[in-house]
């Protein structure tokens, strides 16, 4: 499949060279990112951008490279080639800490929660409040309570280990942790994966609230096209390590996305039959 031209209707447009207006509004811009793991090419040539307060949905099949891209954007692993621009300036994301300091935070698919630790210790993990040399548990406990209450997550206690919480509560804690890190760009890897309708609603409400505030740009990796179109401003489709589709959510549909993916399956099937 050849990469379609961006539709030009998105708030910040497409890759550089195709939409000059986009360069001005993009908070995060990714240019020609590639990544290989041995013989496996995870990302071929990624170009994407997200504007201020925009929610970008990153869709794609299993193995398309979505999680790899997110791990590059949050500083967990470096790209082989390409560059990342934050507010128009090129940045080197050397580590998760470094990316966080620059205002990029992430909620991993596995949530990066520690079952054995309490809710408030998880919320402050790696950003602990310290009254040297000891942890300021009292302050962390109080602030965690306030933050969870503010975003409507009703927990009986922040002192329980997260192992005792439901999937939705765990996800909400991971999102709350990232939201309150003063992130300017928030990356959410499959935030609704394996979640019941009630729990998914909790997370969707949380994302809507963030969107309304308008000061955080969000990239959501998702599988569910319907949910992605509902919550995101714009949709990018990642196929075989490249962005092959870039449209505003209001200008696309589940049907269109399904058709693209089905066409891709057909093409792959035909190629396999020919090679056999």
């Amino acid at each position, binding site marked *: 499949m050849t990469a379609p031209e961006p539709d030009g209707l998105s708030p910040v447009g497409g890759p550089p060279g195709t939409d000059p207006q986009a360069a001005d509004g993009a908070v995060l811009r990714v240019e020609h990112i590639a990544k290989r793991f041995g013989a496996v090419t995870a990302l071929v040539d990624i170009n994407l951008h997200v504007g201020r307060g925009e929610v970008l949905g990153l869709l794609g099949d299993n193995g398309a490279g979505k999680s790899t891209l997110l791990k590059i954007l949050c500083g*967990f692993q470096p790209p082989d080639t390409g560059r990342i621009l934050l507010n128009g300036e090129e940045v080197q994301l050397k580590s998760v*800490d470094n990316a966080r300091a620059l205002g990029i935070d992430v909620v991993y698919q596995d949530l990066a929660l520690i079952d*054995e630790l309490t809710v408030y210790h998880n919320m402050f993990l790696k950003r*602990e409040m310290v009254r040297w040399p000891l*942890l300021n548990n009292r302050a962390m*406990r109080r602030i965690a309570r306030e933050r969870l209450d503010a975003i409507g997550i009703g927990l009986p206690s922040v*002192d*329980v280990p997260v192992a005792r919480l439901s999937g939705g509560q765990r996800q909400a804690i991971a999102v709350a942790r990232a939201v309150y890190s003063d992130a300017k760009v928030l990356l959410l890897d499959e935030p609704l994966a394996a979640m019941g309708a009630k729990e998914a609603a909790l997370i969707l409400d949380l994302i809507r609230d963030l969107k309304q505030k308008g000061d955080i740009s969000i990239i959501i990796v998702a599988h569910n096209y319907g949910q992605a179109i509902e919550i995101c401003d714009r949709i990018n489709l990642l196929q075989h390590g490249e962005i092959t589709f870039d449209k505003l959510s209001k200008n696309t549909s589940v049907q269109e996305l399904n058709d693209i993916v089905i066409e891709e399956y057909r093409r792959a099937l035909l190629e396999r039959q020919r090679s056999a």
Partner: protein
Amino acid sequence: MSETAERAPEDVAALPPTPGLGGGPWGAVKRAAAVLAQQREATVFVVAVLLVIYFWRASPAFLTKDNIINISQITAPVAIIAIGEVFLLVCGEIDLSVGFIFAFSPFFMHYLIDYYGVPAVLAVLLSLLMGVAAGFVNGFITVALRVPSFIATLGTGFILWGLMLTTSNAYPANIPDKAQGIGHWIGTYAWAEITWAIVLVIIFQIALSRTRWGLHTVAVGGNILGASEAGINVARIKYTAFMLTGFMGALVGMQEAFRTNSIDPSSGGYTPMFYAIAGAVIGGTALAGGSGTIVGAFLGAFVLSALTDGFNLIGISANPLNIIFGAAILVAMIANVQLSRLRRAGRTT
């Protein structure tokens, strides 16, 4: 004491009466028991108290000053080594070589003082540093070369053992005269070792449960990928735990040499290491990582020491003692696994 996933005292105090526990004095006792049951150290604490009562009733000599000193001198080295092992176990590793760091460190001090003219205090410090360096090597092989710590430390343990035997010709050595002064404070005085043990246990329990270092150690053992994704430097946490264990091994080696007034090639080895791990496990540290308590390990070391001393006092042969030890470890481990399961399910609240 294990703050990580336990309820803090101030929150416990603020909790409403637990349903089913009733009110009045009896209810308060039940609530106190429920709070106690949430502490990982609770089981081993109760066992330790029961053992003291049993051996005291069986032999009044058990609680004499001399015997208490004797128990303290069995407990202290195990407890000090256990401090390092708890940090390692909590972050998902183990050190089998610590007993050989124990054996080598007093010889190292002896060589520095008697063959190289190094001042005693500096020689003691350099011997402790040797333990830290051995821990660093263990960390390097485990973290950088990705050899499981069980195998890495098995190998380095043999190397240290061989080094010690080769350099000493397997003969004991005398404590250097110049080191006798500092030696009193390290291990010669009757209460020196247990004092060191208690001070170190308090310091490192606080470090494990109330500092960023401790929290990150628990995080690495609980979910290594998650900890790494959260930005924790997993390698640094593991290196630190190995180096801490090496330090403790070297300290105990010198303490025992000063206490016995001899540098003995047969001291150390696997026994203190296994006792330390057994003490840690009995005290509530999970072998799978992610949770542990230094105070629990101290109590575990005390239980093992009380068993050793108590059975000796009441005239039971040392031969069946291993059966008791093995059973104690198994019972403690089964209790830990089941209690952890209950805690996770919230049924102890």
